[in-house]
């Protein structure tokens, strides 16, 4: 790598034409579209209307052969490292590399993840731009820095110096800081901890009757949560009965919990129903315990197709064999050189150091991350064989493609028709579930926000609500309304991001720019509220960090009016464009039955005609106090899914308007007394008391599962707590895009090759959210 360092700049300086070469390279840095992680959202803004990177002569082009500049946006996972190396190799000299975001440098918030690499180990980097996520201004400044570097101006802004502190002696005398984390030595792990709630006796009796002899115990674990314990042999029969007799038709989560000191795995399926209205809010946990040695269990994917991909994921993480699932023994999410079975407790990830010992070199403080070695991720043999004889071609698309995010989909195409498609997610798998097991509960708030930084508040809300449900905290009314406002702003933001990507996939750059311009307005408001563009981390258990003042509320109110004009323009140019309608109508149809079978969530489920919105079914925050409607459609095609989300934006604005009006009349604290304890002075602003209030949260024993309706669907957090540690024992996150992946592949079959982008855009598939 050292040989390559600055080789391209040196290359430019050779020859008699070097002034021209430098000048032309400087003003014609065409970045190739190498979106690697969540900072891609900010890249979109940097090159859209608000900031317009094209001013600097940088034109985003999708193809590595024709560009000379890579902007690496954040995390490079082990799987993506190969793509990065390939893309860099494909580009003609002279070429330049910028790394943006904190995780591209030393890992940022994912520094101890088992699946990331450092981009500087893979390609020579010309400029680093810190930030998590970076702002578009910073990105453009990075472009300017590269330009300066090409013409020979050194723009080094930071000089690292080691400073010997004069009062070192005093420090030594003080007590050295220790880790605030407390791990229970033999944690008590129990899924079915019964609780006295005034709910579910009838359902329990029904289940007992229907599952006669098949279960070991049925426990009500919380309101709307019921756990069925069964044996490994009966698991399949229980699922079969639940599906056939109780109309429990989809799985929301597949989870494996390893309990090494008891030599067992707990395999659990969280199922629910889309067809039976009474069962819609209910989460039925079916679980069984199996031995640590040779763990095997019957796959439930023949019964619940929606469990398919999650089972494969769990197989990779824990090594549990799901008999009957075709993907066993094959890599799905992880790269070939990722450590095996990374989520097992015996696999330890690096911990923070709290003490700097004298004489220690800085390299020792760095996380030892080996550069990736084996980078080959093959396409399954049986997918390729026979293609030639059947007159079909195999086309892999992604993870580096002008029209794909960080997802690889491999097609078999006959003529122009897609015969089969297999997905390969995991290019942005940053191992959040493992990292979360090594952080305090409160430290996980910003971590889980990085699931989807174009929908940050909802991601926060999902996690924070889980903690609140576990701790039994009642959020003050004012905070409820303010949280509703922020969540809806975030929803609008996410939908416009998807709309922009949808129009970009149709080659309609104007639609993309308009959508980003509208997002910019919403982000502006989020900045006013929290100070951060796309990662506010503003919600905390029990409320929010600080109050929203009246003048900011006025700005939010103004936004609800101002957004209409631009919305109209976006609709005129893109939505009602005859070509858009011709491309999207009747394409990628997912019937109601298919949508339920594949376990679709969110607007994509509603577009197929299922009236399922958690904000109505199991209302949280202030949603039941406001007047709004659920948007459903019947067509289930790309246009339906797209228009459905545009209609939801209007509902969201309606909610924001009402909530802003209501919240002006509601005084009071924004943090609950339950969580504040003795620090009552923090009721309106947590600043200064944050760690004292939240540092030592411990959840009661048991498993806490909460579902939240985020922009793209149901976000499920399932936290296993042993009741003693102040770090979670296991966190299971199921993000909506992950659940939608199955239906996405289903909708592709039988469509034309070019329809892949229509379907992709219509599902709003956001890979960082799906891969976690």
């Amino acid at each position, binding site marked *: 790598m050292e040989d390559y360092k600055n080789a391209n700049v040196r290359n430019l300086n050779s020859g008699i*034409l070097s002034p*021209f*070469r430098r*000048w*032309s*390279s*400087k*003003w*014609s840095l065409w970045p190739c579209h190498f979106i690697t992680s969540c900072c891609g959202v900010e890249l979109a803004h940097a090159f*859209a*209307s608000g900031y*317009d990177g*094209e*001013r*600097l*002569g940088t*034109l985003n*082009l*999708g*193809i590595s*052969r*024709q560009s*000379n500049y890579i902007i690496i946006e954040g995390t490079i996972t082990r799987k993506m490292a190969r793509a990065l190396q390939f893309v860099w190799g*494909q*580009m*003609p*000299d*002279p070429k330049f590399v910028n790394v943006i975001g904190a995780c591209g440098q030393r890992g940022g918030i994912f520094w101890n993840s088992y699946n990331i690499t450092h981009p500087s180990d893979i390609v020579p980097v010309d400029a680093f731009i810190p930030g998590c996520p970076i702002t578009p201004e910073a990105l453009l400044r990075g472009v300017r820095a590269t330009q300066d570097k090409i013409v020979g101006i050194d723009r080094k802004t930071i000089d690292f110096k080691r400073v010997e502190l004069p009062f070192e002696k005093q420090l030594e005398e003080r007590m050295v800081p220790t880790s605030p984390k407390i791990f229970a030595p033999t944690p008590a792990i129990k899924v079915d901890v019964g609780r006295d709630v005034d709910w579910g006796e009838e359902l329990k009796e029904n289940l007992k009757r229907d599952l006669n002899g098949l279960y070991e115990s049925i426990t009500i674990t919380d309101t709307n949560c019921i756990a069925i314990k069964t044996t490994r042999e009966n698991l399949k029969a229980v699922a079969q009965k639940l599906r056939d007799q109780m109309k429990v038709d989809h799985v929301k989560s597949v989870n494996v919990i390893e309990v090494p000191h008891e030599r067992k795995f707990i395999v659990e399926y969280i199922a629910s129903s889309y067809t039976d209205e009474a069962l819609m809010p209910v989460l039925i946990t079916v679980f069984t315990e199996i031995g640590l040695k040779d763990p095997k269990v019957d796959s439930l994917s023949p019964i619940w197709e929606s469990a398919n991909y999650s089972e494969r994921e769990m197989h990779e993480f824990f090594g549990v064999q799901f008999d009957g699932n075709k993907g066993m023994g094959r890599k799905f999410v992880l790269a070939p050189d990722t450590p095996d079975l990374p989520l097992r407790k015996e696999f330890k990830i690096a911990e923070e150091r709290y003490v700097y010992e004298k004489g220690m070199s800085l390299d020792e403080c760095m996380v030892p991350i080996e550069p990736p070695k084996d980078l080959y991720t093959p396409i399954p043999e049986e997918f390729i064989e026979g293609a030639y004889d059947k007159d079909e*071609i195999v*086309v892999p698309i992604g993870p580096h*493609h*002008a*029209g794909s995010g960080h997802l690889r989909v491999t097609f078999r195409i006959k003529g*122009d028709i897609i015969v089969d498609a297999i997905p390969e997610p995991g290019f942005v798998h940053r191992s959040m579930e493992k990292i979360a097991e090594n952080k305090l509960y409160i430290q996980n708030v910003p971590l889980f926000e990085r699931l989807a930084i174009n929908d940050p508040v909802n991601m926060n809300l999902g996690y924070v609500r889980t903690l609140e449900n576990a701790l039994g905290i009642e959020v003050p009314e004012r905070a409820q309304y303010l949280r509703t406002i922020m969540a809806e702003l975030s929803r609008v933001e996410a939908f416009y991001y998807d709309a922009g990507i949808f*129009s*970009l*996939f*149709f*080659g*309609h*750059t*104007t*639609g993309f*720019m*308009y959508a980003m*311009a509208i997002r910019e307005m919403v982000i502006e408001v989020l900045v006013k509220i929290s100070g951060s563009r796309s990662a506010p981390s503003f919600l905390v258990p029990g409320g929010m960090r600080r109050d929203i003042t009246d003048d900011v509320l006025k700005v939010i109110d103004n936004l609800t009016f101002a957004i209409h004009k631009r919305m109209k323009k976006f609709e005129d*140019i*893109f939505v009602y*464009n005859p*070509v*858009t309608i*011709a*491309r999207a109508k009747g394409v990628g149809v997912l019937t109601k039955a298919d949508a339920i079978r594949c376990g679709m969530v969110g607007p994509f489920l509603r577009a197929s005609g299922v009236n399922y919105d958690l904000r109505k079914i199991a209302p949280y925050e202030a949603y039941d106090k406001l007047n709004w409607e659920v948007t459903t459609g019947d067509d289930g095609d790309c246009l339906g899914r797209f228009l459905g989300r545009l209609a939801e934006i209007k509902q969201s604005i309606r909610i924001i308007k009402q909530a802003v009006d209501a919240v002006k009349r509601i005084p009071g604290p924004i943090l609950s007394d339950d969580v504040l304890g003795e620090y009552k002075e923090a009721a309106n602003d947590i600043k200064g008391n944050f760690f004292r209030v939240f540092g030592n949260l411990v959840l009661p024993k048991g498993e806490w599962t909460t579902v939240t309706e985020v922009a793209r669907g149901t976000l499920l957090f399932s936290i296993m707590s042993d009741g003693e540690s102040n770090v979670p024992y296991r966190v299971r996150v199921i993000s909506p895009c992950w659940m939608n992946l199955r239906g996405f592949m289903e909708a592709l079959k039988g469509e*034309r*090759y*070019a*329809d*892949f*982008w229509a379907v992709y855009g219509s599902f709003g598939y956001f890979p960082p959210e799906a891969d976690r």
Partner: protein
Amino acid sequence: MLGLPVINNLIALLLWESFFVLIIMPGFAVLGTLLLILPWIERKMVGRMQWRVGPREISPRTRGIIQLLADSLRFLFQEVIIHKDAHKRYFLQFPFLYFIPVLLPLLFINAGTAGSPLVPIVSDYGLQLMVALICLMPVFILGLGWASNNRFAFIGTVREAFLYFAYEIPFIVAVFAMVVMYGTSNSVGVVDAQAGGLWGIILNPIAALTFFIAALMATARLPFDIPEADQEVSFGPFVEFSGIAFGLAYVMGYEKMYVLSALMTMLFLGGGSGPMIPGLGEVSYLIWFVLKTLIVMIVVVNLRGVYPRYRLDQGMKIGWNAMLILALVAVAWSLVIGAII
């Protein structure tokens, strides 16, 4: 100075009407300038449409007009990669060979007006020759794609081939309608027939519309950006080209657009007819001609900001259904109107 025999001859050659028209205006020199300016105009205008400014910082006073110079120089100086699976000879030859069918139609363009034709070669079969050369262009693109030996290039090439047939026939029939209308296929006669402001677009708007859509398809501009769709097949046939080879491929589309716009100006917009600019003589016709061509090109490039892309089957459906019917109606229209006039 002018007494020197060589310079005298040289200037005489340059100012020789046919030569001037071919080499300078509206021929190669203007074409070369437009190739540098037009992508800039496109990026600026589409940028305005999209609430942003487009290239600017390279020369803020002149609004970044030299942006394309930087881009083309960069392409010139960049490495040309020929990957090992490519057919090496064709891979390098086709971008250059492509210039033949693109530039030759300029030989028959009449940039003058009724009574004073400005055309390099007068031929009774001018239109037929131009149409034949224009229809030859896709063959070279197919060659490019085939030599690339890449999946996306393959898909893009097949798309190009499909679309080629879809627009080809309506295109030829639309030109045929105008031949019927004017009663001649000589480019001098075509412009003469549009004397007195009775332009082809007024005489036969249906043929003009068909021709325009066919030109969009032929130059692969949105909404018919199907063979080169960068989100789908990443520039299709050109996916493996880098450096100056891609630079050539990149400008080829614009050259093709120039030729088709010039043909449209000649056939439908009265060639170089317009009010005389005092002191310029016949050059004023050339200026009018280039201006009209530029306007047609600007309309074509601005569609990028308005339309998404059709799918291949939809594009073909438009070609084989709507456009073919329109073209046939245009022929009937020409027969009727021709009989009345």
